[in-house]
């Protein structure tokens, strides 16, 4: 990390002093007081300037973004004490320099102006002191009763310090109860590992070691703590360059179209309830011991070649299973991976990450029973929002009313805190010290990036409050835990290194080879004939906790490109059969409960299978998240966590508009996203260039541009892009891109500078998908430049198509004339110019745009100029791969590559020299500087009806 921390420090030092001197002098002159007395009243310098804080120069700190308790190592860019942008930590195993969407968006949560800001008691303002006093008074009798009557409800605890603190709480209060509940957590994985191995183990994959991958309803590019890493490993196993035509192969059987399924070389669209059967038949075909041979004509076509392929790649394959699938299938997949010899290779097992893995549903059930029985005197809910997201049949909210002293601790005053006596504001994980494990157990010590914005506490401080008097700061607590653990002779050095690098070296959990137990697959063979309902966590709002994050609300869903709403996803055929109409409200009935939501006809959804997402229908999620979509938890029960067979669905007839950013998902034969099987490449590597011919250089009236020094350009590898859309959020965070809200999205006025296009291919009832990130193409013959009447968009000498906001009068002619439609327009004042917290997030290097001007991708020109200045000060040229755009930096699969085309050593020049390289719509002679590497797929030749 040292190279990151010291960037630009010394050269600027002198000029900073000079700057401060000048500042002082000019203010002295301006006040006219310089001669007689020091103008102390008017100047506000740092009394003690923080070391190395240089205005205009960013500093970088390693920490981690925590989702579901599990860490993704990140590096935060801070400007004068304000973190503004999250980047991946290149050394961290879950990140490798990239981040997930949620980590990118976490910075906005930190600055969310609607976070809980104060302690409240019975919805009236109170204080931490009052809380502490009253808590200890209430604890006194409980302490005497050995802790009986004290219950803690946490989310899944993975943090070592937090786990240690909970142990200490339980030591002091031996009869206190600790429950965990995460609505969208890995319930099936836990139980599945218990079934397969007799104990809880943690499973993760090394997809870089897999030639063949099979996903059984696992959208592993999107969900889970290792999705960023998996996408990386998947993509690097299929980068065809020159004569290297090695590609891995991905089979996906899934119950709704996901990014993973869209990228699959073979996608099998099955009802949720059929996936288990498919798994059993496959297990029989690859010879899993104890699985009796079953086969059905339905899967014959694919099972044979698939099992052959898997068997031919023993120890070089991986079978992944979705968290929403039943535990029995998880156990079966463990058995299949064992039978294929994958364990220890592409499939890795370690001890559980969690401090205390348990059946969380049972745990929550017990808690509710105790609450109803009145034995819970004090309930401390640490994070989590069970009043909103607990299974409906438990009646959590009602039970909560029976608890004498209920305490909710969280980032927001939410549905749960509405029912509790106390509501305590939590610190964001960027505001306090903490620690967390990554998917493989690697520990990151989280360091605060900013002084707390509000009077909040972190979870470790809260727990400390229970056991220690007086309570200590989070740093002391985390340090004291690691002081015991490190065992290093020089703890200070160890600490500095661990915190500075963003991870504790070699802290991943050791691999183990757990022994398989006999498994029972009987439950998987049942299939149902009615309409089934499946649940999924929303990919961005997750279980609903990020509903207040406007970036995530407006980030289009991977396939549907829906924003600001969840929907009832059905296939066209099923909709027709049951009278459901697109964008009309339907009613789903499960038992006595029902929900009503808007229908979205989703190609890729199996017939008789309805999919709904959690995370919406919040009633207390601030102005952003409240009252949009419908609450699918209302029809979720402890027996139907992810799947409910035989439900009733009917159309109410009311219409409800859903806001999508892409209305049309057919390419209309235009072949913009060129995709071919690898065999085509072997026959004719330049097939894509032939599809998009380049007219002669002289087919223009205007003189050619010359780029004497730098010529910036981008190449995007479509084979590698998995449509995770982290680039979209990274671009939004880097470039101060505003959100516009549902109404404006309906008007098609969303502002993302970079979008990821999705097209369906093949039969739309069972489609494959094509993905293409579309930034500005920075055309050499840019159609926008010609038509702007006021020269607000012009060409730079280094190949950029520049946009000068101040000059723009807003004719929008440039947008009309842009064949790629990458220009966005501030139809209204979209940027928030007034909220102080949001101002702190803004990148100071990028203008905040006002009403009435066009904006668009700049290739992160601020980063280019920063590198230019740095290079100039060091009297050198910008190095080959020195400048990274925000989208490139965040891309887990390195699909986006940016650099100087003039420099033959740069990665982008090498990419552009590939035979796969083509430009979109080059036949218009726009000469785009953003080009694409055509997508290659690797279908199994033994499966004949490859759709394309």
């Amino acid at each position, binding site marked *: 990390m040292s190279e990151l921390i010291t960037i630009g420090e010394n050269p600027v030092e002198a000029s900073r002093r000079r700057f401060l001197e000048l500042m002082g002098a000019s203010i002295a002159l301006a006040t006219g007081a310089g001669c007689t007395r020091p103008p102390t009243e008017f100047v506000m310098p740092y009394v003690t300037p923080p070391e190395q804080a240089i205005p205009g120069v960013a500093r970088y700190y390693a920490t981690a973004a925590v989702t579901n308790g599990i860490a993704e190592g990140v590096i935060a860019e801070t400007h004068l004490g304000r973190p503004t942008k999250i980047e991946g930590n290149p050394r961290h195993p879950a990140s490798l320099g990239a981040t997930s969407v949620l980590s990118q968006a976490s910075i906005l949560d930190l600055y969310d102006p609607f976070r809980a800001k104060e302690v409240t008691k019975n919805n009236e303002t109170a204080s931490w002191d009052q809380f502490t006093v009253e808590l200890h008074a209430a604890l006194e009798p409980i302490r005497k009763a050995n802790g009986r009557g004290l219950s803690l409800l946490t989310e899944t605890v993975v943090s070592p310090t937090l786990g240690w603190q909970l142990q200490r709480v339980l030591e002091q209060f031996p009869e206190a109860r600790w429950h965990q509940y995460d609505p969208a957590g890995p319930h099936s994985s836990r139980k599945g590992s218990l079934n397969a191995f007799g104990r809880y183990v943690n499973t993760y994959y090394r997809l870089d070691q897999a030639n063949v991958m099979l996903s059984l309803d696992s959208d592993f590019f999107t969900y889970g703590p290792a999705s960023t890493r998996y996408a990386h490993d998947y993509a690097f196993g299929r980068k065809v360059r020159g004569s290297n035509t090695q590609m891995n192969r991905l089979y996906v059987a899934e119950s709704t179209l996901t990014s993973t399924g869209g990228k699959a070389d073979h996608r099998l669209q099955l009802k949720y309830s059929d996936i288990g059967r498919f798994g059993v038949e496959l297990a029989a075909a690859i010879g899993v011991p104890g699985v009796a041979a079953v086969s059905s004509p339905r899967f014959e076509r694919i099972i044979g070649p698939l099992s052959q392929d898997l068997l031919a790649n023993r120890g070089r394959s991986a079978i992944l299973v979705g968290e929403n699938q039943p535990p029995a299938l998880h156990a079966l997949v463990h058995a299949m991976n064992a039978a294929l010899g994958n364990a220890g290779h592409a499939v890795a097992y370690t001890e559980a990450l969690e401090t205390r893995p348990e059946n969380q549903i049972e745990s929550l059930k017990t808690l509710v029973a105790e609450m109803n029985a009145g034995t819970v005197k004090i309930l401390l809910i640490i994070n989590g929002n069970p009043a909103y997201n607990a299974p409906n049949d438990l009646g959590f909210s009602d039970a909560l009313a029976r608890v004498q002293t209920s305490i909710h601790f969280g980032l927001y005053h939410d549905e749960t805190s509405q029912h509790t006596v106390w509501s305590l504001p939590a610190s964001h994980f960027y505001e306090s010290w903490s620690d967390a494990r990554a998917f493989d157990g690697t520990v990151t010590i989280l360091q605060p990036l900013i002084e707390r914005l509000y009077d909040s506490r972190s979870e470790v401080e809260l727990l400390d409050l229970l056991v220690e008097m007086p309570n200590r700061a989070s740093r002391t607590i985390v340090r004291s835990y690691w002081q015991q653990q490190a065992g290093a002779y020089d703890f200070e050095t160890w600490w500095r290194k661990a915190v500075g690098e963003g991870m504790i070296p070699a802290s991943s959990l050791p691999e183990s080879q757990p022994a398989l137990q006999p498994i029972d697959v009987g439950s998987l063979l049942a299939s149902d004939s009615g309409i089934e309902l499946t649940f999924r966590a929303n990919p961005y709002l997750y279980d609903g906790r990020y509903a207040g994050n406007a970036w995530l609300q407006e980030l289009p869903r991977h396939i549907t490109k829906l924003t600001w709403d969840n929907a009832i996803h059905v296939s066209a055929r099923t909709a027709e059969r049951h009278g459901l109409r697109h964008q009309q409200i339907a009613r789903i009935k499960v038992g006595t409960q029902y929900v009503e939501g808007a229908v979205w006809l989703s190609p890729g959804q199996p017939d008789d299978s309805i999919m709904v997402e959690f995370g919406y229908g919040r009633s207390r999620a601030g102005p952003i998240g409240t009252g949009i979509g419908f609450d699918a938890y209302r029809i979720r029960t402890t027996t139907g966590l992810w799947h409910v067979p035989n439900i009733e669905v009917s159309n109410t007839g009311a219409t409800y508009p859903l806001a999508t950013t*892409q*209305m*049309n*998902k*057919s*390419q*209309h*034969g*235009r072949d*913009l996203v060129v995709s071919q099987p690898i065999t085509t490449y072997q026959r004719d590597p330049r097939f894509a260039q032939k599809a998009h011919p380049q007219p002669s250089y002289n087919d223009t009236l*205007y003189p050619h541009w010359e780029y004497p020094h730098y010529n910036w350009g981008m190449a995007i590898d479509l084979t590698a892009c998995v449509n995770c859309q982290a680039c979209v959020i990274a671009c939004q965070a880097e470039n101060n891109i505003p959100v516009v809200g549902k109404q*404006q999205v309906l*008007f*098609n*006025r969303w502002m993302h500078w970079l*979008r990821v*296009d*999705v*097209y369906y291919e093949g039969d739309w009832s069972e489609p494959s998908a094509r993905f293409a990130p*579309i930034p500005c193409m920075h055309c050499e013959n840019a*159609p926008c430049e*010609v*038509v*702007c*009447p*006021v*020269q607000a968009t012009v060409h730079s000498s280094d190949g950029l198509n520049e946009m000068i906001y101040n*000059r*723009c*009068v*807003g*004719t*929008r*002619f440039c*947008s*009309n*004339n842009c*064949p*790629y*439609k990458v*220009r*966005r*327009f*501030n*139809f*209204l*004042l979209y940027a928030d110019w007034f909220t102080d917290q949001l101002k702190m997030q803004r990148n100071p290097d990028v203008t905040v745009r006002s*009403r*009435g*001007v*066009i904006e668009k991708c700049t290739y992160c020109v601020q980063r280019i100029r920063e590198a230019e200045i740095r290079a100039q000060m060091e009297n050198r040229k910008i190095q080959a791969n020195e400048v990274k755009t925000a989208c490139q930096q965040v891309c887990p699969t390195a699909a986006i590559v940016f650099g100087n085309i003039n420099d033959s050593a740069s990665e982008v020049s090498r990419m552009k020299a590939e035979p796969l390289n083509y430009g979109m*719509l080059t036949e*218009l002679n726009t000469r785009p500087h953003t080009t694409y590497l055509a997508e290659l797929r690797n279908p199994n030749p033994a499966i004949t009806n490859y759709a394309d």
Partner: protein
Amino acid sequence: MPIDEKERLQARIRRIGAGDVVLVRPGVTSESLTSHIAGVILQPNVPLFWLTMFGIGIIALCMFVIAVAILLDVGIGELGTNIPVGWAFPIANYVWWIEIAVGGSLLSSILHLTNQKWRNSINRIAEAVTLAGIMCASLYPVLHLGRAWIFYWTLPYPNTLTIQPNFRSPLIWDVFGIFTYAAASVLFWYLDMIPDLAAVRDRAENRIAYLIFGVLALGWQGSSKQWRMQEKGSLLLAGILTPLVFTVHTVVSFDFAIALVPGWHSTIFPPYFVDGAILAGISMVSMITIALRSAFSFENIITDQHLNNLGKIILTTSVFLFYIYCFDSFTNWYGGNPYEQYTDRFRVFGNYAWVFWTFVAFGIAAPQLLWWKRNRTDPRALFVISLLVVIGMWEERYMLMVVSLSHDFMPSAWANFAATAEDNALLYGSCGLFLAMVFLLVRLFPMVPLHSVRQLLPHAQNGGAIE
């Protein structure tokens, strides 16, 4: 041109007309004509028809003013415009109004140069249409801007930034085109009106009217020297206006043809726009003429023959427009450009097919009724057909914006357009502005050019013999 030469020409026209051509009904004398026309201006009591139309115009204009205030205050997000449809109502309105404006210019320039005497009596009305049309049209390029208050950055003026407009942009050509056209039109209208203003001045009964018209008449005495200069000037301006009729619409068409949007990028656009403009412009002139004729009893100087001629122009241009559409589609098919072909299909069968078919029904099919002379000379029939054409031509402009922009190159960016209340307020509000302007002009200034109609009177021709 010497007077005798002119008379010879006029005599020839009358001979060709063979009694059928009645441009001024019998019984009209120089005296009665002047009192009739000047009377409209000088009489204190305004007719109910005028009040009604002007009132409607003013009410709609108020709506327009409010709409503009909202637009400037909140932003053009009030409109339905989006990405990809960056231009919709305002630019459609702009093109439509500038088309309507051309009707007057055509009469005052080309028909003037070609000595079509029949134009004389409706010339001034047509020019009122031109002025009002230009006024409406010129508002939209400013109003549709994201930052309307700095519209002047499109002008080449000396500034401290030393930045000039981008002369490669057709919008800049448009700025010049519109300004030139507006200036020439105003000058022509005024120059042609000077003798009439003097006539009104001479009949003014109160001092204020006398003063105002006296100043406006610029000391016109009716000397032969003044007449010669006025005639020369008019002829010269007509000569300037003639190419402008073509260039202004060519330049407007460049706003689209220069862009590479399918449905816009076509070399046929200049003649297509000129033709469409004449069609819409003459239709509007017909409507206004017919209305004023019946309201102010001008049947004796605006005869069925005028309507007949206007009808013929409408018919011709609509047929030509049909040809252009056929030819454009053929070129797109023959050229094999898949994007253009898609836009053609989309225009005819897509989401906005109803707009296309409305245009075809109103703009091309309806004028075919004018093949029959009965319809051409029936003021009611011609009025209705003209109204349909004017509506159809707006639909066509809407189609040109929305159909082409909403579905261009990238299918992922396709999106539909829906108009908002603000869009409609601006459109109908500008109709109010137009109405108010036209009726104000005809009320305040002689609506028939006295001096040139006098030339049509029999005594100006064959020594005073009445036909």
